[in-house]
């Protein structure tokens, strides 16, 4: 396993949980995302982790923009080294495509474009090393009864993208999998899904991090193209966003 992980979408709670878990396992974690200015400092992710934890830094970029993401990944390479692990966490929010909405297909379009840009760019880095792990994580951004309904387009798109890319990248030793809340599964009846407590008492972000930790390990070398539904509790509170440090990504936090 390489020691460099890129996490996109750490402003979502599952993304942040995955980043913290990878740090805890000693990987250097680069957070690539837009500078929201209202959230988490890498130091907060590292807070309470052991001395063996990896380094962490934020690299501001628009992860749905090819040039912006490529620039950020280049800076990750010069700071930490070549990317071996990519965790992309995308929100499953409303397209408002439906009867009441007027926003169009924006949410799904943005989420899937982020997967595409991040996946293509990072995979280019991984191919040379003949090893890589890509995990696409779905984060519900709508709670309550609407969560299932609003997540369906993104969830389906994430799954199809994951399966397709897994087939393409397997010859290079790169696995591609995705993680999503069981309560959002298409096979789940909405009436017993997001509105009710689901599965274990473990919050979904933690459950997603548990599975992601396994999927990026050497032990999961034979697992690719799969969709892991985890039965964690969906979170209710709005997650905090990662915050770019004043050194714009050149500073590296270390516990």
């Amino acid at each position, binding site marked *: 396993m390489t020691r460099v992980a890129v996490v996109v979408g750490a402003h979502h709670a599952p993304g942040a949980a995955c980043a913290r878990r990878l740090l805890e396992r000693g990987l250097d974690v680069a957070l690539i995302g837009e500078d929201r200015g209202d959230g988490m400092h890498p130091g907060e992710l590292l807070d309470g982790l052991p001395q063996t934890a990896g380094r962490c830094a934020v690299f501001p970029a628009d992860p749905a923009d090819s040039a912006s993401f490529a620039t950020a990944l280049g800076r990750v390479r010069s700071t930490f080294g070549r990317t071996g692990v990519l965790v992309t966490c995308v929100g499953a929010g409303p397209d408002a495509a*439906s009867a009441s909405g007027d926003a169009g297909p924006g949410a799904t379009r943005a989420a*899937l474009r982020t997967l595409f840009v991040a996946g293509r760019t990072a995979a280019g880095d991984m191919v040379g090393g003949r090893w890589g792990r890509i995990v696409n994580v779905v984060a519900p951004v709508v709670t309550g009864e609407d969560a299932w*309904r609003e997540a369906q387009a993104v969830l*389906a*798109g994430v799954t199809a993208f994951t*399966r*397709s890319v897994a087939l*393409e990248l397997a010859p290079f030793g790169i696995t591609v999998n995705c993680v999503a809340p069981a309560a959002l599964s298409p096979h789940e009846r909405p009436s017993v899904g997001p509105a009710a407590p689901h599965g274990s008492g473990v919050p979904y972000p933690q459950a997603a991090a548990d599975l992601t930790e396994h999927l990026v390990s050497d032990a999961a070398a034979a697992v690719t193209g799969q969709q892991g539904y985890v039965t964690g509790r969906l979170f209710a509170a709005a997650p905090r966003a990662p915050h770019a440090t004043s050194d714009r990504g050149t500073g590296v936090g270390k516990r």
Partner: protein
Amino acid sequence: MTATTGAEVRSSRSAGVAVVTGAGRGIGAATARRLSAAGLSVAVVDRTELDTAETVAAVTAAGGTAVGVGCDVALADEVDAAVRRVNEVLGPVDVLVNCAGVTRDRLLLTMGDDDWDTVMDVNFGGTVHWCRAVAGQMKQGGGGRIVNFSSVAADGNAGQANYAAAKAAVSGFTRTLAAELGPYGVTVNAVAPGFVATPMVDELAERLGADREAFLAEAATRSALGRVGAAEEIGEVVAFLAGSASGYVTGQTLVVDGGRP
């Protein structure tokens, strides 16, 4: 009836109004003809009005009513304008079939931004734009039928990460919209065709430098029925989902691929 475009269109036996996007050729054209045979007046939508001419002519030659409408489904403004035109000429929309689709097959590492955006914006965005544009009038009219087009590629396919994601998103969106519009008597379903002999497949074979007949023969081996599908067979399934016999079916994606061998 010799209806062509605009105010010239007259209907003598309409059982409602259907819009079929991507109806200039292939599955869309077959669907338009089939819905016309079922008595619906049909708005034949394709990139340009010229692209719709052949289908409009076929429908009207068979005694149906059709209007050709040029529209880039990826652009919300054009879709809104197209709906206004359909309403003016034919009336409120009872049936919407979102068949417009494109492919830009590339492996991920060589796929350009434009390959991704075009496929996403036409296949998924176009479906969303049209559904949003007609959902209000279907609610107001007390019901309706929406049939979207997914694909068996939505299960994942190497070289089609863009198309697979877009078509899967259509299936997911279909489930969402079915839940939202169900209370208003509107059913929303999707059809996922397998390998169907259409001009789009012909173009694919040409791009790959493959002999068309050999290409189709190879594809036939991947069907339990041992053959590729015909556009008319997809049109029949759409007609079922657009008709009264499917009134209790919604939120589904119906795979029409000749079965797995």
